[in-house]
């Protein structure tokens, strides 16, 4: 499926930026809708962000992103960190043409899961060499919504100014660009 990845047209956002776009957010939410509620409460389109939702089922059309984005992901696995990243998110990131644009991750979870709390954010941050920006529980509180609104605006400004870096980030972006080109 990734052989034609780079020629795929960009998917339509669920919420399109209402002003000049400053960046994008890609999120996954299962039928329990916790993350979807959090994203809806953030109203990121009003802050100039395109918001894309990853599909729930394999039969749904895959999402293709061609712009820098922050991934918002719930932690799965019920306490087992090995199963922390939802399958649908892995499938999305397995496409190098999608992966080359990830710039940060935000994860949700539940402190009841102990060491596995928000482990999906750790896993994706370390594997993709991108900053782990924030984490919240379940559908987030009003304070979480405000922090993410403020934080994402600052983050995309920092990104434009070239002030976002973590070890291995630039190398990972270049490597993914090359992989996407080879395919």
């Amino acid at each position, binding site marked *: 499926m990734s052989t034609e990845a780079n020629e795929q047209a960009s998917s339509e956002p669920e919420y399109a930026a209402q002003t000049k776009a400053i960046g994008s957010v890609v999120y996954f939410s299962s039928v329990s809708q916790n993350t979807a509620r959090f994203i809806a409460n953030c109203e990121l389109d009003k802050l100039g962000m395109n918001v894309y939702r990853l599909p729930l089922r394999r039969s749904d059309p895959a999402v293709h992103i061609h712009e820098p984005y922050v991934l918002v992901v719930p932690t799965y696995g019920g306490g087992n960190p090995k199963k922390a990243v939802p399958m649908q998110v892995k499938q999305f990131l397995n496409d190098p043409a999608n992966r080359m644009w990830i710039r940060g991750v935000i994860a949700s979870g539940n402190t009841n899961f102990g060491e596995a709390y928000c482990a999906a954010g750790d896993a994706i941050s370390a594997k993709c060499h991108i900053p782990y920006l924030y984490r919240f529980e379940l559908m987030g509180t009003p*304070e979480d919504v405000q922090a993410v609104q403020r934080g994402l605006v600052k983050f995309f400004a920092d990104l434009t100014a070239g*002030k976002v870096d973590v070890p291995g980030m630039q190398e990972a972006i270049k490597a993914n660009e090359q992989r996407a080109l080879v395919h």
Partner: protein
Amino acid sequence: MVPPISVPRKPLKLIDRVSAINWNRLEDEKDLEVWDRLTGNFWLPEKVPVSNDIPSWQRLSEAEHTLTMRVFTGLTLLDTIQGTVGAVSLIPDALTPHEEAVYTNIAFMESVHAKSYSSIFSTLCSTKEIDAAFSWSEENEFLQKKAQIVLDYYEGDNPYKRKVASTLLESFLFYSGFYLPMYFSAHAKLTNTADVIRLIIRDEAVHGYYIGYKYQKGLEQLTQPERDSMQDYTYDLLNELYDNEEQYTTSLYSEVGLVEDVEKFLRYNANKALMNLGYPALFPAEATDVNPAILASLSPNADENHDFFSGSGSSYVMGKAVETDDDDWDF
């Protein structure tokens, strides 16, 4: 002889179909996902070396002994209700056969939880102390009241109210009790006992999530006015239970001076219980600022700074590597 607490609803409805459960034909994939999580998390108290806590138990004061045993009998009572009445009462309302199967797992695990407190008791305490704590639990009016409130809904005729009561029990009513082992563990006391409680806490999170999710699925079949009335009912019930929890907390913790700290933990978990039901948090951040030591005891990395947004400058940080099922990754 102590009679069993469950009184079957009449007419007793156990099955309304004559078809076998087919796990290869799912109506709601969440059923299988949660079944897998619950069975994957299966545990028994015998696996945890609670006897290593004997020296630590012996160093606790008499007041701490009494408090611990009262807290654990209170938790035993709730687990008994949830295992024998609560989770079972949800079965006749299930929308899918797989949902019924998940409730049987929840009911069984609640009985494992209830038994694990007895296993802790038998390791650490004398029969006389154990009997005294059980008598206390039968006489504490606030404990009895919270048991009565949820039992009334379990035996009532409204499937939505039953799920709300069940979710509030799983995600809120346990936490006045869970606080204590987390507090001890933060002070390097009874750390193996705390490991047992952490396993229980992990299970309750999945139970609250699942029952809350099924509640939300059920709401889809109601009209908007009916949904509004369920939301009002939920906040009213939470407030009623919260008032009772405050009094229960005072009756337990005032002697050791922890009432205020416990109440923050209660409000923090009340918010999470509401979220499991799909409703916004009720208590503001300043009322739910749980003692960081308690939070760290619950989740060892919960106190690490993961709000790089709020920091000054642009120092961004990476998460720590997590071993995940690598077969699914292409890179």
